[in-house]
């Protein structure tokens, strides 16, 4: 059976939704929201089908597609000098990210019910964003990756700038400037690689780099890797490139933050793993100590700052910085445990932060505030929401039985083997995470009620869907981590091969 149509369909299927939306009148609020939601389902169905395909014991390479696309020809017309293929593919790692994207997108579409104006524009941009994200994770060469990467930027810019909160414009611009600069650096790296090697295929590049006769000096490779670290460091974000994402987390509408924190930040981690570690393993090794230190700084910096925030959204924003530190810690370990921990953390944090931001959206919709001091005693008026909030916080602080623990544990397990002292400093983050999350969540839900919660509805109806689905996934990964680790086996082996281990 030829399955090469699957990925293209998966990536571009939201276009159908965009087309339908384009034909609808602006005022049909309910219908627009319904179409917007339905349009996120085909990628989800196909993504899950691909996962089942894998579980069935079949190869993921069945999905690979590659056709000639763009060619630059010189004097001799028959021999293209540079050619760019349209190539999509799936490895275990990519598969997981595609499924994660599809799940979070569908749930975010549910969260977008609360959008108050111009639903048509919102959902068209939203679906375009989904295409970009799916493309990023399936692209098999750097040019295609870059195109999709840029496709994610533009809709996000408008989604923040138009549908956000009070300082939305400022947040949107700082998002664009930072990510634009990151893209510029990334583009330079891609162009140098393309010019030097004549290909942008990721696997091919990884292969070429192992070749001693390749026309790239060690210094150049190191320079390229550092550039990649900067480019993706903006996205992840790595201290001190993080300030744009704080604004985005606070100002963007809940559905967009779910996507942003759940998926878009993960592009940084994906890029670091797939390109940074995948293409430049040797140079990555020389930077390992620096990356470990950066990871610990991220972890502690985010945790300590989250400890004194007054706005719950800011707590979560700094918490994201802190949790992305764990990704760096895992990667810096350069062994199986660490890398697998980093990848687990990418997925796990995607689910947990999506859940937390959905709950923030629910709270904000009802109380018009996310300030911790204004929300005390919430558990009395909204016990179910408060319960899920506490459970999500527990997941985030790495409670065993939930996904956060498995990833944190493996990342530290890995780093303790290589750099025990740095890892030991990092464990302070484990304590601080508990401290800041409990301070914030108990501040909101426990204690005396600071206001009347009478008449404030608890979680209801369709709002249960995202909360329950995300919670179940979080617990599933925590209890039965093989759902993630078995697709990752092959990816890990490839990476370890590159690292010479």
């Amino acid at each position, binding site marked *: 059976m030829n399955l090469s149509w699957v990925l293209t369909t998966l990536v571009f299927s939201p276009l159908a939704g965009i087309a339908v939306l384009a034909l609808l009148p602006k005022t049909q609020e309910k219908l627009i929201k319904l179409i917007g939601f339905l349009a996120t389902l085909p990628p989800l169905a196909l993504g899950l089908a691909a996962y089942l395909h894998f579980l069935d014991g079949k190869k993921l390479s069945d999905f690979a597609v590659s056709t000639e696309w763009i060619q630059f020809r*010189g004097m001799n017309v028959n021999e293209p*000098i540079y050619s760019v293929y349209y190539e999509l593919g799936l490895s275990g790692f990519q598969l997981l990210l595609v499924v994660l994207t599809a799940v979070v997108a569908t749930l975010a579409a549910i969260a977008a019910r609360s959008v108050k104006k111009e639903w048509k524009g919102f959902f068209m941009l939203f679906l375009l964003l989904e295409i970009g994200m799916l493309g990023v994770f399936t692209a098999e060469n750097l040019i295609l990756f870059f195109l999709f990467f840029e496709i994610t930027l533009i809709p996000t810019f408008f989604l923040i700038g138009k549908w956000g909160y009070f300082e939305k414009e400022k947040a949107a*611009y*700082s998002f664009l*400037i*930072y990510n634009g*600069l990151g893209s510029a650096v990334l583009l330079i790296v891609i162009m140098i690689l393309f*010019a030097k090697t004549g290909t942008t295929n990721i696997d091919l590049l990884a292969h070429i780099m192992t070749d001693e006769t390749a026309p790239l000096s060690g210094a150049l490779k190191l320079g390229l890797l550092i550039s990649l670290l900067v480019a993706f460091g903006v996205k992840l974000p790595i*201290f*001190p490139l*993080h*300030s*744009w994402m704080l604004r985005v987390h606070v100002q963007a509408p809940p559905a967009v933050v779910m996507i942003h924190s759940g998926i878009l930040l993960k592009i940084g981690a994906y890029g670091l793993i797939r390109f940074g570690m995948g293409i430049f393993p040797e140079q990555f090794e020389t930077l390992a100590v620096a990356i470990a230190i950066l990871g610990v700084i991220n972890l502690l*910096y985010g945790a*300590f*700052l989250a*400890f*004194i925030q007054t706005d719950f959204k800011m707590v979560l924003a700094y918490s994201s910085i802190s949790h992305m530190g764990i990704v760096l810690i895992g990667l810096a370990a350069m*062994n*199986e*445990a660490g890398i*697998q921990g980093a990848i687990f953390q990418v997925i796990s944090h995607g689910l947990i932060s999506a859940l937390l931001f959905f709950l923030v959206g629910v709270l904000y919709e009802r109380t018009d505030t996310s300030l911790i001091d204004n929300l005390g*005693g919430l*558990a*009395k008026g909204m016990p179910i929401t408060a319960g899920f909030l506490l459970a999500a916080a*527990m997941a985030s602080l790495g*409670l*065993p*039985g939930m996904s956060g*623990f*498995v990833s944190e*544990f*493996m990342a*530290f*397990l890995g780093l*303790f*083997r290589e750099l*025990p002292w740095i890892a*030991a400093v990092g*464990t302070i983050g*484990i*304590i*601080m995470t*508990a*401290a800041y999350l*409990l*301070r914030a969540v*108990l501040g909101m*839900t*426990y*204690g*005396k*009620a600071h206001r009347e919660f009478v008449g404030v509805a608890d979680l209801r109806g369709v709002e249960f869907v995202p909360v329950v689905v995300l919670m179940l996934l979080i617990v599933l990964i925590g209890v039965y*981590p*093989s759902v993630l*680790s*078995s697709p990752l*086996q092959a990816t*890990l*082996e490839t990476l370890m091969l590159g690292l010479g281990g």
Partner: protein
Amino acid sequence: MENAWLIPLFPLLSFLILLLIGKRLKEASAYVGILFTLASLVFSILVLFERFSEPTFLKKFDWLTIGDLHLTAGFEVNQLNALMLFIVSLVSFLVHTYSKGYMHGDERMPVFYAYLGLFTFAMLGLVISPNLLQTYIFWELVGVGSFLLIGFYFYKEEAKAAAKKAFIMTRIGDVGLLIGMILLFWQTKSFEYSEIFQAVEAGAVSNTMLTLTAILIFIGAVGKSGQFPLHTWLPDAMEGPTPVSALIHAATMVAAGVYLVAALFPLFTASPTALLTVATVGAVTAIFAASIGLVQTDIKRVLAYSTVSQLGYMMLALGSAGYVAGVFHLMTHAFFKALLFLAAGSVIHAVHTQNIEEMGGLWKKLKLTGPLFLIGTLAISGVPGLSGFFSKDEILVAAWEGGHPVLFLFALIAAFMTAFYMFRLFFMVFTGESRGQQKNVHESPSVMTMPMVVLGVLAVIAGYVNTPWFGSFLGDWLVDGNEALGHGHIEGPIWIMIAATVVSLAGIYLAWLIYGKRSIARDWLSGQGGMLYTVLYNKYYIDEFYQLTVIAFTKGFSYFLRFIDTFIVEGIVKGVSGIVQGLGAMGSKMQTGRAQTYGTVAFVSLAVLAVIFALTGGYLR
């Protein structure tokens, strides 16, 4: 025993059921909880009896694969596990039953029973884990159960603060355990207890590493068992409902630290330094907490400090290589301390206060609670004939044989203090005139008194299982087949037993003089040593010390980082956006609208390109 894995699952089911439909069941949810824990108890008893005659049962499967590493999960029934299963499920069942009366009328009863189920699940899971990783997993879950139950009255600020404190303080210890466990893993390539012990025995781990990992793991036990200096959360944890204090903060969870050290005993014995650390921390905690207990006025807090002190005793026993003594005292303490807490709950239920200054003369009004409380008090004071006497004697012998005379002395003084403050409590609550304005004081319903009676019986007889009277010693069974655990039973010098008895009776006599007969004025202590009294009453100012150091530092450091974030990092941001804006401004200045300028630029640029083309011959390679 192959079905032992079901034991933790019953309470988990209870938790899930109550979470989903508890609201509809209302007070009937108590029956769900009671029935499921009863099932656990029945299975536990069967497993315990099977374990008397059969060898250890172990079953495991792959849980998480990391490259070539296969981390497993499973369950193991050895002597210690079987005993713990029995203790935990018994106390849990009794507390479930008791709570039906105690929590009567609380509309959040389903939530209460759900949390109890979650906790019992985690605790039972903890005691049948065959490896460190799984132990750690349940270890943390137990902490969450405790956290939820301490914060059960979530609308009270004190409960909120206590829950938060309990979670964070124990987590500090847990990080020690995590680090120790990971370091040990890279030394032995395994989390399995049996494989770790093999590696240790084979000398695969260096002495430094042994001591380091053992002490790190012990830090985890210090946090969980409320040992000095991480003890401050345990007295505050009394904000939870009293049955919870009996179950979690007396009999089961706080004993998990002791259990952990016992489960890893061969690791500890391999490092004399680690063993000495355990013994010292235990002895210091025992005397330190007992001294605070002398002057507290909240009935539950006195019991809490008593728990801390008794846990210190168990640690001292283990640290003196007295494996049997530690585990034995763990068991007897579980019974009499749970009894004391439940009886205290019954008192609070009757008089609606926890302040012993407002009680008094309750002996006549609480006809059942009073005698039961007395049994518990006698047992914990180490009066001959009751369970506490046997296990405490065992500990004193172990401390003496362990060769630490100073620690032995500490233990003896702590025993004196224990007898004193417990009988102070008893006399102030039950004898004399009533000092409060309570009316309608009446005995608790039988659903509450029956569990107390069961515990009362056990508090009397449980000590005899380690005597020759039953044909064989508990100790011999516990260490059977494992030489690393030391002797099953040792005959200590008889003078230790006499000394223990004398000390305990002296404490009781002094308490009687002051609070019973009142021939010594009550403010004698506070008058004679005003300073000392204030220091004790304020618990050595440890909380204040943490407030001024650790917490203040954390806050200060956070504000320092915020300073960096707002001025330096944002400064970079301003710089970056300034450059972009500057470039934009320059660009717009170029747009002068003069065609001549545009033309010039275009031609010059073309010329430059032509030159480059000519020089490189085409492509930029």
